[in-house]
């Protein structure tokens, strides 16, 4: 089986013609959905639905464009696909064939060489463990580390720098062959360039690895334990040590540690939702009930949870051989979409590389036509490339993203993939789960009805009291029923925990009632002890009630108290009286009407309603010794006294409504996708604001206007509640229509597969979609989404693996804070890039002027690298700490196609305005240094050939003094240093102006971001160290500079600041003007 699975995996990846993009298998209905874009660029989605037999219904849904293409061609592909898929489906069916559920316990014992009572021996277990490997899912095949590393080496600008390095070595080779005097300069330059690439590559790799490690450490945080019988003893073992044949015991709340054939159960129910999407807990027994191993009751599957009861079973499959393991290995083949920021950075790299190459080639041609030697021209080319490429920028971006990732981790968003940080910011649609994400994931009593009145209960997360009126004697009676007619119990040893946080053994409603009673009445367990239970009929689906009989805690009252709860209509049927203000009154039609109204009202709120009634058994008929028999029901179960209703709901998290309204103002559409009932879903959607108070669905309008649904103008309805059943029959166009026309959408009763269809629908609208999910079956949707968000608490490992981000607290509000951070980092990256690009011009101009005007070289290649990788790094990272200029959550999400990270305005403003100003300032310094040493600007023009001639040692300056080659070189290095210092000084101004794009610096606050000042001081500090500390190291080409030269560029730095303030002023003053359009980046 293992072999088959791996073969299937390889067919997927190797099949070139049918590049399988994703695949989900819902084994429950043996349904395969597969989307296959074909090789001919026509987008085509193909859905194959197999219904238990081998009959395929093929529904072809491709968009209009592909209809134009050759049909015959298509037909052939179909056949191909069909054949292919049929085989795979069969493989799959074969795979899930298990026969363990058909065997008896003794046959199983024999098969696995184990004993139900004694378990395996430790030695035998160790043997099997060695054979089968640990019981854990193999993580999806990670890219080999070396490949990741090499990718960093050739990605981005690295290729350009490699070209530079190779050219350097080539020219070194040529010069060496020609016997030139100082060929080693080029060798060193090549080595330095290679080092730069390798070091930045290592850095990026390290950053990447670090963020992966955070994730890895997270998944290892809670090792699962399993209770195993080995060597005839019960032992707690880590779940990954389990082997086939182990006898394990599970109880309510546990996660099933492996695929298990049950041999003993007691009221066991499992939640298979992570496997099948079925949200109702399934009961489990030891009986073989179905041929299909997935349908039979006597197998519990790995990674599902046991909701209640206990069970003992034999492990029949471990690790990747479990059913979930097989699905997980198949879904891991889903391709990852490129993140928006990756696209943006690619765009930026292309842009800069394009500029670098075109300027490089242009000047190569110019220099060749100016009769420079080819070799010299190549060296110019290297210089131009180095000047143009912001070597440190990609590292800076990585650091900025990881800083934000860290900040987000503090806010409970754990980002697996660094780039996902920004993706979250550009999100325009969030498809959110309901349970656990929007809601607290626990039933809570929301309303009560007694004395003909509805009371609301507090449903917040940390309730300690209940505010409603508790003076009525009816409440006393109701509270007694709630307390006694309840089988749920707190796990012992949690006395110090707040009630709401305590773990309860029991189902969701009973838990809610228990906690509700505990909050109001105090110690429920002691109340139950005082009212000893003498008989009990647990809840079952046929009678739909639960009943118990108790002695009372009143020593004078010898009557037994019969308490009953259940479905309200069933309870009412059994009642003849109703309690009003503590008095029993006959249940007439008027009171029954009142009950109906209350019941409908609470039901309409999407709440689960329970009815409560009681009866004091007359003492004479039922003395102390009366033998209650629950099978023969020798006690009255009708003509009881109705006491009240309680309704429960999984209430929204208190932070969610605020978060939803934030999303709304941020232009993010929140779509609820849930497996729940439409009424509940709608109620929750309304209470959190996903459906706003004023908007109506088509059904609401129909109801209000009293017209049939078909007559309603669909455009009028802003909200829509779509049932999963409707969705199934919808064409893609219809789905698109719904997604387009309604701003508030709830999908109810959906399966995880439909989630994928919804995600794709949203992506067709051009939206950046964030999807939350927890089950294994959510993983394709998580992968397909632009950003998959897995739940940290409720999420399965498969979901976490597929996701880009993990919400540690499962809270929707955390997503919104994540969005905020993501938007901020996008803005700040813009600033960082603008800052970094600016000085490229100041580095490039010297080369161009050197080539054209033949002046002595103003700045060296190595010096440029010292700016790019030295002084500029910390300031550009510091911009990542910049606070938002305005409320970024009040703007629409950015348009993927229009709002680029690096847009024309940014490039033009940085390159052609600020960059040129910087160049001018730096050239002033350069000319000043030369002039004060005796070379007036006029003398410098056209001197390059003689200046660089090693054999001229009496080069004459403007004053008639004569300079040796070495003296000239030293002066040239002084020029480099001066140019370097000027750029640094002006970069300080550049850093300050980049703090804001629209607001004045004074609005933003010059000192609010302290890290900027760290950046400025580090920048100047590094420059000081380079000039004065390392000024005597010849190879670095720095010289100790006269102190006054540090200030030559200061007027230009001030000019840059003033100019940018003016720019921002005009932008603020004249929004939408020509200036705004061309100057705002």
């Amino acid at each position, binding site marked *: 089986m293992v072999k088959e699975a791996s073969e299937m995996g390889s067919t997927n990846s190797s099949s070139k013609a049918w590049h399988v993009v994703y695949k989900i298998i819902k084994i429950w209905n043996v349904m395969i959905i597969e989307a296959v*874009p074909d090789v001919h*660029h*026509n*987008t085509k989605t193909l859905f194959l639905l197999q219904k238990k037999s081998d009959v395929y219904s093929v529904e072809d849904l491709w968009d209009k464009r592909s209809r134009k293409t050759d049909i015959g061609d298509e037909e052939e592909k179909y056949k191909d696909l069909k054949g292919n898929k049929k085989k795979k489906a069969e493989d799959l069916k074969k795979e899930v064939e298990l026969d363990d559920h058909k065997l008896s316990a003794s046959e199983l014992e024999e098969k696995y060489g184990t004993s139900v009572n004694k378990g395996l021996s430790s030695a035998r277990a160790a043997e099997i463990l060695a054979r089968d490997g640990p019981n854990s899912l193999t993580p999806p095949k990670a890219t080999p580390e070396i490949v990741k590393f090499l990718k960093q080496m050739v990605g981005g600008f690295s290729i350009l720098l490699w070209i530079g390095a190779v050219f350097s070595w080539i020219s070194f080779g040529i010069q060496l062959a020609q016997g030139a005097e100082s060929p080693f300069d080029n060798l060193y330059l090549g080595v330095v360039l290679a080092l730069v690439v390798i070091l930045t590559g290592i850095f990026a790799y390290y950053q990447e690895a670090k963020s992966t490690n955070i994730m890895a450490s997270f998944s290892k945080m809670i090792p699962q334990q399993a209770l195993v019988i080995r060597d005839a003893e019960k032992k707690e073992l880590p779940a990954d040590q389990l082997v086939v044949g182990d006898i394990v015991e599970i109880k309510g709340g546990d996660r099933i540690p492996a695929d298990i054939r049950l041999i003993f159960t007691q009221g066991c129910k499992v939640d298979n939702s992570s496997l099948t999407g079925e949200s109702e807990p399934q009961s489990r027994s030891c009986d073989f009930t179905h041929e299909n191993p997935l349908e039979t009751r006597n197998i519990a599957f790995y990674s599902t949870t046991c909701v209640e009861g206990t069970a003992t079973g034999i492990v029949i499959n471990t690790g990747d051989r479990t059913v979930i393991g097989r699905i997980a290995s198949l879904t891991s083949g889903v391709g990852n979409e490129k993140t928006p920021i990756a696209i943006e950075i690619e765009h930026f790299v292309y842009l800069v590389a394009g500029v670098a190459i075109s300027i490089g080639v242009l000047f190569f041609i110019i220099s060749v036509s100016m009769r420079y030697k080819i070799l010299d021209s190549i060296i110019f080319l290297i210089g131009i490339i180095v000047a143009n490429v912001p070597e440190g920028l990609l590292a800076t971006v990585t650091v900025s993203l990881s800083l934000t990732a860290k900040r987000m981790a503090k806010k409970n968003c754990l980002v697996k993939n660094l780039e996902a940080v920004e993706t979250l910011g550009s999100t325009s649609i969030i498809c959110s789960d309901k349970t656990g994400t929007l809601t607290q994931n626990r039933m809570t009593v929301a309303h009560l009805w007694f004395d003909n009145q509805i009371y609301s209960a507090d449903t917040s997360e940390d309730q300690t009291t209940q505010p409603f009126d508790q003076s009525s004697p009816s409440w006393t009676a109701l509270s007694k029923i709630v307390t006694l007619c309840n089988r749920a119990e707190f796990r012992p040893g949690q006395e110090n925990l707040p009630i709401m946080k305590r773990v309860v053994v029991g189902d969701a409603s009973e838990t809610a009632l228990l906690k509700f009673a505990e909050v109001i009445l105090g110690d429920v367990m002691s109340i139950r002890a005082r009212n000893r239970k003498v008989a009990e009929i647990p809840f079952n689906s046929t009678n739909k009630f639960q009943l118990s009989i108790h002695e009372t805690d009143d020593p004078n009252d010898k009557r037994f108290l019969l308490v009953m709860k259940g479905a309200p209509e069933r309870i009412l049927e059994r009642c003849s009286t109703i309690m009003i203000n503590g008095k029993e009154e006959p249940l007439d039609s008027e009171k029954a009407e009142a009950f109906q109204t209350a019941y409908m009202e609470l039901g309409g709120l999407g709440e689960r309603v329970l009815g409560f009634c009681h009866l004091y058994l007359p003492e004479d008929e039922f003395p102390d010794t009366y033998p209650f028999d629950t099978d023969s029901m020798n006690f009255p179960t009708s003509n009881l006294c109705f006491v009240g209703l309680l309704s429960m709901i999984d209430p929204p998290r208190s932070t969610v409504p605020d978060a939803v309204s934030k999303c709304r103002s941020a232009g993010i559409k929140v779509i609820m996708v849930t497996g729940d009932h439409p009424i509940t879903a709608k109620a929750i959607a309304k209470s959190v604001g996903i459906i706003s108070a004023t908007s109506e669905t088509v059904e609401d309008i129909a109801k209000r206007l009293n017209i049939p649904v078909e007559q309603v103008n669909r455009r009028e309805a802003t909200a829509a509640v779509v049932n999963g059943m409707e969705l199934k029959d919808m064409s893609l166009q219809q789905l698109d229509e719904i997604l387009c026309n309604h701003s508030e959408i709830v999908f109810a009763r959906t399966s995880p597969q439909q989630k994928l269809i919804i995600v794709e629908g949203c992506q067709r609208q051009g939206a950046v979609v964030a999807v939350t999910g927890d089950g294994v079956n959510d993983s394709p949707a998580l992968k397909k989404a632009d950003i998959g968000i897995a739940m940290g608490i409720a999420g399965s490992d498969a979901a976490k693996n597929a996701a880009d981000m993990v919400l540690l607290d499962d809270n929707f509000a955390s997503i919104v804070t994540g969005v905020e951070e993501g938007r901020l980092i996008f803005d700040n990256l813009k600033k960082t890039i603008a800052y970094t690009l600016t000085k490229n011009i100041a580095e490039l101009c010297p080369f161009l002027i050197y080539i054209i005007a033949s002046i002595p070289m103003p700045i060296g290649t190595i010096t440029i690298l010292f700016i790019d990788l030295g002084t500029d790094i910390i300031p550009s990272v510091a911009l990542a700490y910049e606070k938002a200029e305005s409320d970024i959550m009040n703007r629409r999400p950015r348009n993927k196609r229009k709002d680029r990270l690096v847009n024309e305005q940014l490039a033009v403003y940085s390159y*052609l*305005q600020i960059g*040129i*100003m910087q160049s*001018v300032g730096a*050239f*002033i310094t350069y*000319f*000043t240094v030369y*002039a*004060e*040493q*005796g070379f*007036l*600007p006029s003398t410098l023009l056209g001197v390059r050939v003689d200046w660089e001639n*090693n*054999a*001229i*040692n*009496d080069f004459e*300056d*403007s*004053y*008639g*003094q*004569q*300079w*040796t080659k*070495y*003296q000239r070189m*030293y*002066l040239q290095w*002084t020029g480099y240093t001066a140019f370097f210092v000027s750029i640094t000084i002006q970069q300080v101004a550049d850093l300050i102006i980049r703090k804001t794009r629209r607001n004045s610096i004074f609005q933003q606050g010059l000192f609010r971001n302290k890290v900027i000042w760290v950046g400025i001081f580090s920048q100047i500090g590094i420059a000081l160290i380079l000039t004065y500390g390392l000024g005597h190291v010849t190879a670095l080409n720095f010289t100790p500079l*006269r102190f006054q030269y540090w200030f030559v560029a200061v*007027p230009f730095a001030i*000019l840059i600041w003033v100019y940018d303030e003016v720019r921002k002023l005009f932008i603020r003053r004249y929004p939408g003007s*020509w200036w705004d359009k*061309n100057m705002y980046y």
Partner: protein
Amino acid sequence: MGSKTWADLAREMKMFLWNPEERTCLGRTAKSWGLIFLFYFIFYTCLAGMFAFCLYVMLLTLSPYTPRYRDRVSPPGVMIRPYLNGFTIAFNVSQPGTWQPYVDSMHHFLAAYDDKVQEEKNIECISGRYFIQGGNESEEKKACQFKRSLLQNCSGIEDPTFGYSKGQPCILLKMNRIIGYRPGAGVPVSVDCKVQKGNESNLRSVDFYPGNGTFDLMYYPYYGKLTHVNYTSPLVAMHFTDVKKNYMVPIQCSLNGKGF
């Protein structure tokens, strides 16, 4: 969605170059382009003006006679003549074509040192002390005569081939000019030569002219191109009378004096 075909790309490109519907070229209308050009014209004009102004102000602060700093140019370097392309001098005595360029170079260089020219332009100075000329900085300074004949055997007067035809080449050594520089601190700087690497006997004897190969103090200090118009650098000629032939002899000549 797949990538676009080349035809699509070409169409898009064409649309970008010239969009007839919106009448845009490269994504901008004529008006937009006009405004952009106008803006950048003004912007760059202002910037150029600022650049020019800054340079002008900076140049105003400089003296036309003396550069502000002379720390990078001193101590002075030396240079040799003949100078063709480098510092290697190799020729074949029997083939005049191999040494004629050297000789030409020497003659060309020494033309300014012709006795007549020197007598005409420059004055005779008192040997052995610096020729300090006070007065206003802008006043024209006088220069001392350095007659070619001082170089005796290497003057090219008696032997117009400077010894090259005999395999005894003359090489002239001059010290770089530095404004205000007084070499040797009162004691004339002298020159000596030795083999840089290899056998000392390869060089054997060198004759120095004038005198013992010293730069007389009277030629210093130099007052700069503007006022010291006729200044001619003093020379020391080195006559390599017996250098080993058919062999590469690396020779290092150095100046000896205080302050180097």
